[in-house]
């Protein structure tokens, strides 16, 4: 894994993110942007909820027959003149792509947005071998010139403010006049368009990801808004599609079902500006398009997830809705998660792909509020899977001793209801008396995690259990 993983330092990362003023400013617009957009788009389509069921069933069917759909897909790609490569892991995928580039003596590579390419650390590999790899999605480009990684799976530069982007453009596009006006977002856009247009036109190889692979026709689909993926794959001699094996769907009809959910869940659009279906290289009568079409199918731990309690995660279509709606993601952004995939989907996927020793911290970054599952277009039970990971982390004694002691202490009382009630009501009365004057505490022993950022309210009245006991029961006693 060429990308350094900081997931084990999640707590420290999160602390830093909370104190980062520019990041906090950048994250502010998340709720009214994507969250409101998704709600409006879903509301405009009466069949939206039923389509979620349909999409879940399609992917479950595909995953249960993944071997056969892979074989069918491969056959069709070959028939259409394409080449299929299989990669067990990151290293193998990187080597295949490097070999393709070398066989064409490629110096310049353009890239469409691909999370898989982040996963395998492709840019670093190509650069190390003297090949310029340019990210062409505007957000990816911005992140690349800052030597950062994406902080969101669909809007990679969401952690940055406009001022930061302006500073980066001035720093990197140093041949342009310093006096130019970049105060408007549109002027930043125009500058990036001109610079990347040159890169598109001179690229030797174009690398894209895939949102879907269609077994029926041997087709790969990319879904974009900028058109960068299309210029990446249309202009160079060679188009390489890098996709993980779970991207398969059986038919065009199945793809259409899920496409109706993807953009609505991601950005609140009915359809993204460009949905492109590619099948093989340039045909004899074509006047444009790539002369070679390669597909690199990456496993990288996914086949091991099949048949386990984490198999549902393989339905994920990378829309980002779970990130956008997650209170933890909204507070700390994506970089704190420490690898490629942030938010709830990342909290499940990272330990699956990297191991619980590296990613085991991430499933703890959840309040289990359930918003991720409630908006997931593929109905992935994300909180349930995070709970599985927490259990595994606990079983493997990876949780800190203090945390385990606290849990053991709580369990001791919880298993003895009478003692639990006595202890809690005693503690409550004591706290209520101590906090009577101010109504809250600014410091409390053992609770500095809470009181360092907010006051702890002093308890009032009886415990919840006592109040519950006393509530009037509907219909009185059973007859």
């Amino acid at each position, binding site marked *: 894994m060429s990308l350094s993983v900081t997931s084990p330092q999640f707590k420290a990362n999160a602390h830093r993110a909370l104190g980062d003023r520019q990041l906090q400013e*950048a994250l502010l*617009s998340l709720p009214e*942007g994507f969250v409101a957009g998704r709600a409006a788009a879903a509301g405009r389509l*009466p069949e939206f909820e039923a389509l979620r069921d349909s999409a879940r069933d*399609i992917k479950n*069917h595909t995953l249960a*027959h993944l*071997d*056969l759909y*892979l074989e*069918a897909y491969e056959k*069709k790609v070959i028939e259409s003149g394409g080449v299929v490569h*299989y990669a067990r892991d990151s290293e*193998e995928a990187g080597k295949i792509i490097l070999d393709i580039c070398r066989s064409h003596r490629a110096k310049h590579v353009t890239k469409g947005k691909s999370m898989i390419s982040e996963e395998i650390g492709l840019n670093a590999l190509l650069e190390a071998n003297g090949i310029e790899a340019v990210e062409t*999605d*505007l957000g990816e480009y911005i992140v690349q010139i800052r030597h950062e990684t994406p902080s969101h799976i669909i*809007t*990679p530069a969401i952690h940055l403010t*406009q001022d930061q*982007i302006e500073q980066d453009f001035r720093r990197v596009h140093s041949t342009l006049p310093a006096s130019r006006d970049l105060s408007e*977002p549109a002027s930043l*856009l125009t500058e*990036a*368009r001109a610079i990347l247009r040159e890169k598109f*036109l001179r690229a030797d190889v174009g690398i894209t990801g895939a949102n879907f692979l269609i077994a*029926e*026709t*041997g*087709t790969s689909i990319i879904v974009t*808004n*900028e*058109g960068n993926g*299309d*210029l990446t794959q*249309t202009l160079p001699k060679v188009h390489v599609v890098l996709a993980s094996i779970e991207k398969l769907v*059986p*038919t065009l*009809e*199945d793809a*259409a079902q899920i496409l*109706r959910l993807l953009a609505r869940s991601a950005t609140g*659009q*009915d*359809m993204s500006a*460009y*949905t*492109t*279906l*590619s*099948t*093989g290289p340039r*045909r004899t009568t*074509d*006047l*444009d*398009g790539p002369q070679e079409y390669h597909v690199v199918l990456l*496993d990288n731990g996914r*086949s091991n997830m*099949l048949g*386990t309690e984490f198999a549902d995660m393989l339905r994920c279509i990378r829309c980002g809705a779970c990130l956008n709606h997650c209170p933890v993601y909204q507070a700390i952004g994506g970089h704190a998660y420490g690898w490629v995939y942030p938010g709830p989907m990342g909290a499940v996927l990272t330990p699956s792909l990297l191991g619980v020793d590296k990613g085991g911290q991430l499933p703890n970054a959840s309040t289990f509020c359930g918003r991720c599952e409630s908006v997931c277009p593929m109905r992935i039970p994300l909180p349930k899977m995070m709970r599985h990971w927490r259990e595994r982390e606990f079983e493997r004694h990876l949780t800190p001793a203090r945390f385990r002691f606290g849990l053991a202490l709580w369990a001791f009382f919880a298993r003895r209801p009478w003692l639990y009630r006595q202890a809690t009501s005693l503690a409550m009365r004591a706290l209520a008396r101590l906090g009577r004057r101010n109504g809250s505490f600014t410091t409390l022993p053992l609770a500095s995690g809470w009181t360092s950022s907010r006051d702890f309210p002093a308890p009032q009245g009886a415990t919840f259990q006592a109040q519950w006991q006393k509530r009037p029961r509907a219909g009185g006693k059973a007859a």
Partner: protein
Amino acid sequence: MSARAEILANIHRALGVSGQELPRRRGVEDRLEHAPKGLIPERGQRDPDGLRALFRAEAERVGASVTEVATSKDVPREIADHLRRHNLPAELRMGEDAWLKALPWHTTNLDVSTGPSAGQDLVSVAHAFAGVAESGTLAMVSGKDNPTTLNFLPDAHIVVLRAQDILGDYERVWQRLRTAFGKGLMPRCLNFITGPSRTRDIAQKLLVGVHGPRKLHIVIVRED
């Protein structure tokens, strides 16, 4: 063991199958053969006038401009007017589409050249394979008639769409593709285009005209 063999073996082990079970194979063949339709939104199920109105409304909602002309003979004049209104040069690039080429371009001052784009053309014209009313989406098919580069490199992309080609949903586009290219076969590239190129990558602000066309203009031909 090759990567392919090992990945397939892993999948077999995880699923507890050998890959040879006949019922599984038949289930997959069946699905690929019959391609069952899923749930198709009610929105696109209407008569031709309704489809045209819905297509237009949806395309305009995502920032495309749409005009309608009565017959194909009116297309060149409408495009010339459009270019004049937007201060665009009277120069067009188009593919070898016979229907497009047969239009009376000589009745306008437009300078029409033929072929794919290498990046110098400001305006392109292409003939849509179909329109999808449910989302105001154009379906463009690659080939010498309408080369893919014309959809992405020029600043202004003009698409001519016959009203009879406006379909309700994507599933009807698949049917048409199967009729045109054969079952299980596809053109090299099928572009679904829904509005002009856009991004939210700078401070989540919506900006139009990133890498693809800045403007998308659709001319619907009512009768042909």
